[in-house]
């Protein structure tokens, strides 16, 4: 199904406002992404292209660059979110539970929500049997975390035209791939409705640091600019602000302080909730006016 068959165009000003409990204005939704990069394939991202631009296999330097996030960077995240008493959503390639059990265990012990993020990091288009990968990923996460994930984010947010059908059939309730609104929305699938949560490609360290090549400090500036605008708008209608981070990027020693500065700023304001995906989903399901 193409997107416009799933959901008609809707202008945000034409919808009844959503309201948050206790007159809160804004929900901050933090998503930590953990990935498995298979050394036998081209790396998902590159910090250093090979001389003359050729993709060579194995790509040890870029594999190692990502591996640093799992060995070192992610522990800076755990430390930060423990200090702030924030439980992010964990977007996790299910294979991480096997290959980096220590990291996945720390997230489970910290009470983070596990969100499905395929088996390993490659476009969902390149997966041979998508239904099998979805089932295997969700089963693995359920076994590991004790509850079955209700959320899903495609690797690199990728979907085929069938993905929403396959996800709803597998019991998924929300996805993050549709970065097209400040509010959750409902889209059609042949297996019933699916909710989209406002994930982000703007406040996301991949587009900002790896694609657009901004300086580390700009992460703070862009997040604060977004926050202040959405906080103001949140006086009239509830807003969601997602922040998406990866340990191999924002977990770098030169970047972590700019992430910390974002939360320091946000936490000076009243009326801000830090929720995970399940909490946003449950609120939206009860708060919205049925169409």
């Amino acid at each position: 199904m193409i997107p416009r068959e799933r959901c008609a165009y809707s202008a945000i000003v034409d919808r009844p406002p959503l309201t948050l409990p206790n007159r809160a204005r804004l929900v901050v939704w933090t998503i930590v992404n953990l990935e498995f990069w298979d050394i036998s394939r081209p790396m998902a991202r590159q910090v250093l292209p090979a001389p003359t631009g050729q993709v060579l296999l194995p790509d040890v330097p870029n594999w190692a660059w990502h591996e640093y996030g799992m060995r070192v960077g992610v522990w800076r995240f755990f430390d930060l979110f423990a200090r702030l008493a924030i439980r992010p959503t964990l977007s996790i390639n299910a294979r991480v539970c096997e290959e980096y059990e220590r990291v996945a265990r720390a997230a489970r012990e910290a009470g983070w929500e596990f969100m499905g993020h395929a088996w390993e990091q490659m476009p969902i288009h390149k997966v041979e049997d998508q239904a099998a990968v979805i089932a295997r990923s969700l089963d693995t996460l359920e076994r590991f975390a004790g509850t079955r994930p209700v959320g899903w984010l495609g690797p690199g947010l990728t979907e085929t035209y069938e993905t929403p059908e396959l996800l709803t059939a597998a019991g998924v309730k929300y996805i993050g791939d549709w970065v097209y609104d400040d509010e959750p929305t409902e889209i059609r699938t042949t297996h019933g409705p699916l909710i989209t949560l406002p994930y982000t490609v703007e406040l996301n360290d991949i587009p900002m640091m790896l694609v657009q090549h901004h300086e580390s400090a700009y992460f703070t500036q862009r997040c604060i600019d977004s926050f202040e605008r959405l906080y103001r708008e949140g006086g009239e209608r509830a807003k969601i602000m997602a922040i998406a981070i990866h340990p191999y990027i924002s977990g770098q020693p030169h970047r972590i302080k700019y992430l910390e500065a974002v939360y320091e700023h946000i936490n000076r304001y009243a009326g801000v909730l830090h929720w995970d995906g399940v909490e946003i989903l449950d609120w939206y399901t009860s708060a919205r006016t049925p169409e």
Partner: protein
Amino acid sequence: MLPTERLDFSAIAQRPRLELPDGARLAVWVVVNVEEWDPTQPMPRTVLTPPAGSAPMPDIPNWAWHEYGNRVGFWRMLEVFDQQQIRAVLAVNGSAIARYEPVARAALDRGWEFVGHGFTQKSMQRVDDERDDIRKTATAIRGFTGKGPRGWLGPGLTETWETPDILVEEGFDYLCDWVLDDQPVLLKTRTRPIVNLPYTQECNDVAMMLIQHHKASEYYDRAIDQFQQLYNDAVRSARIMALVVHPYIMGAPHRLKYFRNALAHIREHRDVLFWTGEEILDWYLAQLPGHRNT
């Protein structure tokens, strides 16, 4: 026709003086581009490349990123135009008028000028029948606004060798694809001449944010720098300044204030006019002996 056959070289310093009414130095026009991205085609721009590169289809995340502009970003931008009482120019894909009817309605209600911007966001070199595409776009605008468009902006400023000729034959009075001057110019066509208005690749959020990857604040800094220089240049002869935005780019919450503050700065100058494209066109034609609009 080659570009050099359509117009002769002309140095701005050696032309007769152009004067704006009431001693104004500069006319600023603000162009808001509203597009429809076909989800079955490769996306015109991307914010996020897929893991390990390649270009898988469909491309839901980048489609959704653009869709945000019409669902949310445009409405944020509209507040700026309302507060500062500026009528913008809507450069709109013909198909986007029906798809995003509330957006087109908001523009029409505020008296914005509608400029044709291709029927879909596809290069003019890739459409099956260029004349048909131009005609369908004009028809969509006329059907919605009750008035045929006078201006045209190619999708991504693209043209074929024939585009200006076809535009004149289909009733257009100006285009904006030729970003080669700070004043309007006349282009020869196989029939009557067509005016080109100074559009911009410099103060344009696609070029600045998506291609050059500047911080959002660069939009403000560059707009002010551009404005101050043109304002100075205009002592000798009137100048036109364009500001170009797309709801999916400058309408993002973290970028909007840089657009708003740039407009507010320019607004403080009393001798600066905020005009639509057709206001600039009519003024320019009235300055030209022998080329009065009939």
